[in-house]
């Protein structure tokens, strides 16, 4: 059974929501979990709710990296930070994967410092799932976008490797036999987007290991045309935050409209189940996080504002990724195209 190290001190609502998420997972699964953080605080939180102690162990460490801290500085100054200790445990084989809702930069750097890159991989990519339309029954309601922040700029080879890694992850986690891979660009034509994207398009098109469907424009990100969308970190992060922002604005507008006058209130009441469904669909708390791909070891990064259900889901995703041998599969696919 996989053993997952969970950074108990990372995230806007840590350690309370992280510990609650682990406690929930302990009652619903047989995954072994290691909570990394202040042992006293963790036990006090465990004591307050139901949990299964047989599946939970605690690794005490004395410090944590705040969400607003400079990642590089903080990692240098706090060698015993929960996120570093969790990464070290995975690197030492004491855990099979790690989950963190903490500082994204620190999470990526801790992974980079402690994990080995898969042979041949130039850069790791931070993936994220996002809600989207489905085109056929049974299609996963979540798409995969990578990179969303582990890099700033990428070259064509790096983008092609992201495509291979994202495809392997979607194949295993979303159970799509042949995930459609798209390259985020400013037009659908092969010649659009400058030298790097044109070269990346050429490389992806020639790869039999992935099901490349060409360029994807911004208005098609959420339509379900591609299961995996590849982009460099800067642009990916902007797209991801835009999607999150739209969901939040829609909810705010609905609340505002409901307060305006009785006709709007009535309309909103009639649409309430639809709005609620939309909110669920765009709620990052239900996704369960997304991986940093490209390392031999696995790290699932959860949104900083995640509450217990997201942590629980992230632990399940991490365990599934370990069981399904995501990293070895990526390594094998990359080896086959070299």
């Amino acid at each position, binding site marked *: 059974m996989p053993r997952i190290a969970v950074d108990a001190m990372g995230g806007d609502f840590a350690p309370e929501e992280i510990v609650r998420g682990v406690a929930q997972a302990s009652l619903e699964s047989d995954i072994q979990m290691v909570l990394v953080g202040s042992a006293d605080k963790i036990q006090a939180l465990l*004591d307050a709710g*139901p949990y299964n102690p047989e599946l939970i162990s605690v690794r005490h460490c004395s410090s944590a990296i705040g969400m607003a801290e400079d990642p590089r500085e903080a990692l240098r100054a706090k060698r015993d930070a929960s996120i570093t200790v969790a990464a070290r445990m995975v690197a030492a084989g004491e855990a099979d994967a790690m989950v963190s809702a903490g500082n994204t930069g620190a999470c990526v750097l801790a992974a980079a410092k402690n994990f080995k890159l898969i042979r041949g991989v130039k850069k790791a990519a931070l993936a994220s799932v996002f809600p989207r339309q489905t085109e056929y029954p049974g299609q996963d309601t979540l798409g995969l976008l990578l990179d969303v922040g582990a890099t700033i700029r990428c070259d064509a080879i790096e983008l092609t490797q992201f495509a291979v890694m994202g495809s392997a992850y979607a194949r295993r986690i979303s159970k799509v036999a042949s995930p459609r891979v798209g390259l985020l660009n400013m037009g659908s034509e092969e010649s659009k987007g400058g030298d790097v994207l044109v070269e990346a398009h050429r490389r992806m098109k020639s790869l039999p290991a992935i099901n490349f469907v060409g360029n994807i424009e911004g208005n098609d990100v959420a339509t379900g045309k591609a299961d995996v969308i590849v982009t460099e970190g800067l642009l990916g992060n902007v797209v991801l935050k835009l999607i999150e922002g739209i969901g939040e604005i829609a909810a705010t507008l609905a609340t505002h409209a409901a307060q305006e006058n009785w006709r709007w209130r009535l309309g909103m009441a009639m649409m309430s189940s639809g709005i609620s469904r939309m909110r669920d669909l765009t709620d990052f708390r239900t996704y369960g996080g997304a991986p940093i791909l490209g390392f031999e070891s696995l790290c699932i990064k959860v949104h900083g504002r995640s509450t217990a259900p997201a942590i629980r889901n992230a632990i399940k995703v991490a365990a599934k990724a370990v069981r399904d041998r995501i990293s070895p599969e990526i390594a094998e696919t990359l080896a086959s195209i070299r």
Partner: protein
Amino acid sequence: MSEARVSDGGAPAAVEQAAITFRWDLDKTYLRTQFESLRQMVKIPFEAASDKVHLPGVPQVIQGLRRCALARAQRPFVFFLSASPPQIGNAIREKLELDGIEYDGIIFKDQLRNLVRGRWRSLREQIGYKLGELLESRERGPAAPREILFGDDWESDPLIYSVYADVLAGRLDAGAVGDLLRTLEVERGAIARVSRAVEALESHSEVVQRIYINLEKRTPPGRFHAFGPRLVPAFNYFQTGASLFELGLIDDAALTTIANALVEEASYSGDRLRNSLDDLVRRGHLRPSSRTRIIRILQAAAIAGPAPHEAMLRARLRAAFERLQARWRRGTPAEQLPELDYAQILRDWTGREV
């Protein structure tokens, strides 16, 4: 008016100084009885002994306690106290025999008599019934100088056992117990019976050494803090066994047998057992040094693998620190028993004010 009861088993009248009594609840403590729904309740009287399922490791705990007490030249007494009707007694006795449990008495609640006499409240009432039975059972003998109690988190065992322990210790008198029972709306007959038994106690001493509560319902352990360190909420019988081992009530072999039972009957792994121990340490119910000893026992029995180097080093450092502390502070946590605040306990557990 006394509560209807049916008992069997011969309890010697003479008090043995070198004796120890183990009192067990049956449903949810020994047996995995399902009575959450009406359908499950209706099924219970028709269950044969072979249909009844014990909790993993519990027969081995009882057997270990008996064997080790005899090895220490102590006379062990094992009593069961159940709120189930005597009509299911035969199946229970057969089940205990199947499990190889030797016991000295078993008490059932005569629900049929309560029903015939139209005592509806008595059918559901637990606290007055059990407290009365515990006190009278001790009055009848044996009045062993040490008792260990085993219950669960399903109903009111933590409260009943704590009151019983404090009555024996002389911390609660008949008046205080009466006030508690009246707050809990226990019927007058049961209160009178308990009060009489409390007044009949000739001497008081710290008899109840530990109260083990099986967390069958997974009640958060923090809810039991108000009951003090004497009460140990345990998630499985390996945790109970570990605590009993620390008290010197079971030996290495018994603890290994309990661990093996959990591995064989409930697919426990070495990791699960190790985590259970660590949980008990973090909750303050087991010393790190005892944990280290128990891990060694599990490793010797090939139940647990070697600990990661770093964790082992940390455990040794903790144990060494604890030995240093022990030079200044003697006694296990439960021996420094604070006075329980029953008014607070009743507020927390029943929402009632004394």
